[in-house]
């Protein structure tokens, strides 16, 4: 019998694949950023010829790296927290309700970010905004960032579902 996406096992597998893909994308972006920044500096100071539009490309890559990385961080719930009272509160409220409350809050916040990023992308598309140096449509970047932001929300929700289905909602890696 084949597994359906509603099956926690199938969801876990899909999420693992999504995490690997997002990790690969973000790592390639970071690698390009490093090479481009290095080439830009060497080009500027050694050959008096910096990479054309280098700063603009690096800025765009930074946004893509952040939002592709966020998908993974959200799925694994690896955000920075103050853990001083987490354990007693979790015990008081109950692990599952605690997980649902804190994670729902995170989902709402991430949805807010995704929504405003989409609005930005849509606005730049409607106004046909161009970047200053490369004269590239701004929505290429804002649109991709918005898509990554939505993927982040989806991976966040999927991560919560996998954790709830597997255990008591405790934080931790879901792909190990």
């Amino acid at each position: 019998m084949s597994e359906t996406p509603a099956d926690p096992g199938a969801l876990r597998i899909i999420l693992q694949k999504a995490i690997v893909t997002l990790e690969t994308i973000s790592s390639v972006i970071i690698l390009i950023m490093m090479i481009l920044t290095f080439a830009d500096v060497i080009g500027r100071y050694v050959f008096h010829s910096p990479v054309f539009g280098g700063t603009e490309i690096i800025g765009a890559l930074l946004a893509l790296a952040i939002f592709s990385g966020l998908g993974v961080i959200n799925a694994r719930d690896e955000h920075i927290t103050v853990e001083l009272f987490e354990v007693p509160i979790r015990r008081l409220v109950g692990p599952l309700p605690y997980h649902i409350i804190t994670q729902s809050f995170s989902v709402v916040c991430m949805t807010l970010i995704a929504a405003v990023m989409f609005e930005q992308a849509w606005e730049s598309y409607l106004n046909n905004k161009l970047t200053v140096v490369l004269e590239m449509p701004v929505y290429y970047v804002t649109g991709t960032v918005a898509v990554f932001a939505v993927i982040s929300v989806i991976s966040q929700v999927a991560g919560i579902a996998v954790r709830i289905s597997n255990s008591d909602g405790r934080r931790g890696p879901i792909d190990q």
Partner: protein
Amino acid sequence: MTTALLGFAILLMLCFAGFRVGFATLMVGFVGFAFERGWTASLAMVAQQVTEDAQNYNLSVIPLFILMGVFIYRSDISRDLYDAAYAALGRFRGGLALATVLACGGFSAVCGSTLATAATMSKVAMPQMKAYNYSDKLAAGTIAAGGTLGIMIPPSVPLVIYGIIAEQDIGLLFIAGVLPGMLLVGLFLLAVSLTVRLDPDSAPMADELHAERKRKAVRGTTPVLILFIIVLGGIYGGVFTATEASGIGAFGAAVIAFLRGHLRTVMQWRVCLVEAAMTTAKIFIVLFGALVFTQFINLSGMPYELLDYVDEWELGPAGLVAFICVIALMMGMVFETIGIVVLLVPVFLPALFAMDVDMIWFGIIMVLVTEIGLITPPIGMNVFVVKSVLPEVRLGDIFRGVSTYIAALFIGLLLVFFFPQIATLLPSIAR
């Protein structure tokens, strides 16, 4: 002011309850701003802040310096750094602990992560100190405290974040961190000497390092030293900006790792790049939250009302900075470094500017204070990292072991506070 105080109270409650710090700050900032100006304006503000900062070229310094640190961390250079430090200081009583301090300083300078330094040095230095019957208190305490040097000695991510929030030159902040960083290394070395003088049994004399191992250690650490000099010297000499230096640093670190036999497979590259990308995402979500929260705090008028109080209480610049330090020290017991910087700095920014406080000096003071928080109870992150790597060492022993270094950090703080030139001398020359 009332709205801002309410916002702060809610934010602290959310953080203490275990809500993710980045999301909590962002949501409180968003709702608070909407409370003052309406939902549409608040949505526009969040959109502008997140979009602009996510694409800010100058902020690419964060992932690239993180990447540099990851490459260095993965290149197994810690052993050579430790041996080189021991070659220099091994002839003194407590030589292994002294070498640990020096190696921590050197490793964290290029690695940039306090936690990675503490974890790595636990593995490298602890077996040596154990072999020579060093007391757990001295050995583990030295490692935990030595790890904190990473956030002062440049490149330092907390300094970058402070620079962004306070709108200060990141390159100058890095340069300003050099002398205080060296001062702290000196004070830590002094703390070790004092400890072993008072309790000689805690650190028996160890054997001298074999000549061949000394040579290997020097050979191994030379490239890292050169990279550090290029990165910092480049910024100091005005050859390149902090962002450009980060690109050079990351590339140089990759070359060093490759030459040391690492980064030879796609998988090894992937591990490093993913680690850097994930850390970047984690930091940026906190940064987005902080910048949104700052907008709300500014709009509420709280920083300006605080300015009135500062005038009324006749605190003066030094009094104001001392007051902020006390708050930061208390926050340091619970919050981690970046959390303190992003929550505290925006609130006092107008008052600090109005009082004509040197913001480069203040940045160094803030980082120094948060450094103390890394080893003070109840949440001394570095202490817990050492404990996790060395489960056989009692937590109480580590906390007792760091107490001498906490005293050293306080002395360092007082020295930088009363002699601001320690932080401002190099930037003033570089300007």
